[in-house]
């Protein structure tokens, strides 16, 4: 074996060792800062973890684009959902007066909020895009309470790391990390294009997370649970049968 190829082997060996230890250190650091997504197991775990870490390092505070009034879509598309049951129809026939958003978990003051109470809180109105993982998009004006306001109101404990949100449709539950939950554009929305949020678009209450794809924006939400661990929810993947348990990534900022 000549000198050049021996040098190549040594260099390659060193590079491989450096890469492996770099990955190990990165993994440790990611774990320490809570940057391991709940669906990090399995063969797609490395890519998913890299995406989540990169996004949290680069885009923790960036804002989703906001648009002008003239860019609002005339033809928004309400993605069909599973049939809404009798319980929902009872709420609907009562104009959602009895609809409650329960807030529980790692908070000082568990609470129930009616839609009217939520409307009395400081509101945020923003014209943003919603994009489906399938590729289609529309732009609308959403109005709602910043989730951060609700989290402050109920006295969220410092060790909280995730917000789990549940829908009247038991299969449609999901969760976000605190970076997303405290982001100023993350809303519990009740209005769209100047009117009450229409039922096909998730009314009376819909999570509106413009920095993540449509499927994270769960419709008909009834309950927020603040937690430090997603393992205890469903299969521990961070979202239900319409998300990670159906093979979809938990982090949907891409």
């Amino acid at each position, binding site marked *: 074996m000549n000198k050049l190829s021996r040098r190549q082997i040594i260099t390659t060996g060193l590079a491989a060792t450096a890469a492996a230890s770099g990955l190990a250190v990165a993994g440790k650091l990611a774990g320490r800062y809570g940057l391991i997504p709940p669906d990090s197991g399995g063969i797609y775990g490395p890519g998913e973890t890299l995406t989540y870490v990169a996004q949290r390092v*680069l*885009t923790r505070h960036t804002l989703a684009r906001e648009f002008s009034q003239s860019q609002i879509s005339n033809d928004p598309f309400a993605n069909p959902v599973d049939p809404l049951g009798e319980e929902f129809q009872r709420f609907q026939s009562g104009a959602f007066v009895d609809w409650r958003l329960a807030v529980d978990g790692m908070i000082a003051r568990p609470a129930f909020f009616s839609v009217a109470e939520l409307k009395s809180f400081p509101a945020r109105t923003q014209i943003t895009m919603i994009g489906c993982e399938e590729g289609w998009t529309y732009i609308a004006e959403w109005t709602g309470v910043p989730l951060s306001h609700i989290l402050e109101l109920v006295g969220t404990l410092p060790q909280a790391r995730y917000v789990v949100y549940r829908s009247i449709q038991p299969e449609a539950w999901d969760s976000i990390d605190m970076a997303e939950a405290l982001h100023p554009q993350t809303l519990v929305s009740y209005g769209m294009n100047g009117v009450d949020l229409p039922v096909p678009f998730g009314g009376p209450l819909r999570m509106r997370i413009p920095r993540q794809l449509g499927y994270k924006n769960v419709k008909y939400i009834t309950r927020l649970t603040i937690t430090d661990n997603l393992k205890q929810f469903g299969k521990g993947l961070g979202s239900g049968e319409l998300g990670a348990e159906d093979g979809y990534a938990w982090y949907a900022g891409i």
Partner: protein
Amino acid sequence: MRLEFDGYSVHSACTIGTLSRMTETIRPRHSLFVRVTHWLTVLSFLSLLVTGVEIIISHPRFYWGETGNVNTRPLFTIPIPSSRSSVPTGYGYVLPDQNGWSRYLHFQSAWIVAGTGLLYVAFGFFGGHFRRNLLPARSDLSPKRLGISIAHHLRFERPSSEEAWSYNVLQRLTYLVVIFLCFPLIIWTGLAMSPAFESLVPATVLGGHQSARTIHFFMTGFLVVFLLLHVLMVVLAGFRNRMRAMISGRVTEPQERV
């Protein structure tokens, strides 16, 4: 450089006993780095292609501007069935949803191709690979020389044996376009579709979110055409030799018979 070691004469002049020692002293046709990054790119590109097609099947409609959905008139549609019942395709059936794993694998492969690409570009600049192997000689860029090269290609002429050691001018230009135009543009348009990333990698200059998606699709088409032509050229130039050159780095076998 390439004349220092003529693979064929080494092979035919030596007995088997000395052959192995002599071939080891020959510079490989492609450096180890180029070979490893080439095959990593092949694997991740194919996986991006398959998963990308799966994702398109869930919405085989394309638009221009910021927004587009089934209520919007598309720029064009691909006449295939869809994996979503909400998309009007004219087919009476809906394909199974494959987007979950397709999206996971698409982004995992994107990480591999982007990482490999960054290393390759760094190596290409600092290791002299671009200057030595990809930058066309000024004399080769004259209309006359370019015309000759194009004519050679159009006649599907088998390249001369000395071309086994170097890229011709059209090859160099094509590789440069793929490396410095197609790949950056497809990565940019991909990132411009990310709702969390779009404020850092704006789609606005491309015409909007849907425009980025459409450009991403056309870039894929361009790269697929490149891939097909590339493989065709490899077959014309001698499939086994060129594959060996890209796998083991050696070009010491006699030319294949056509």
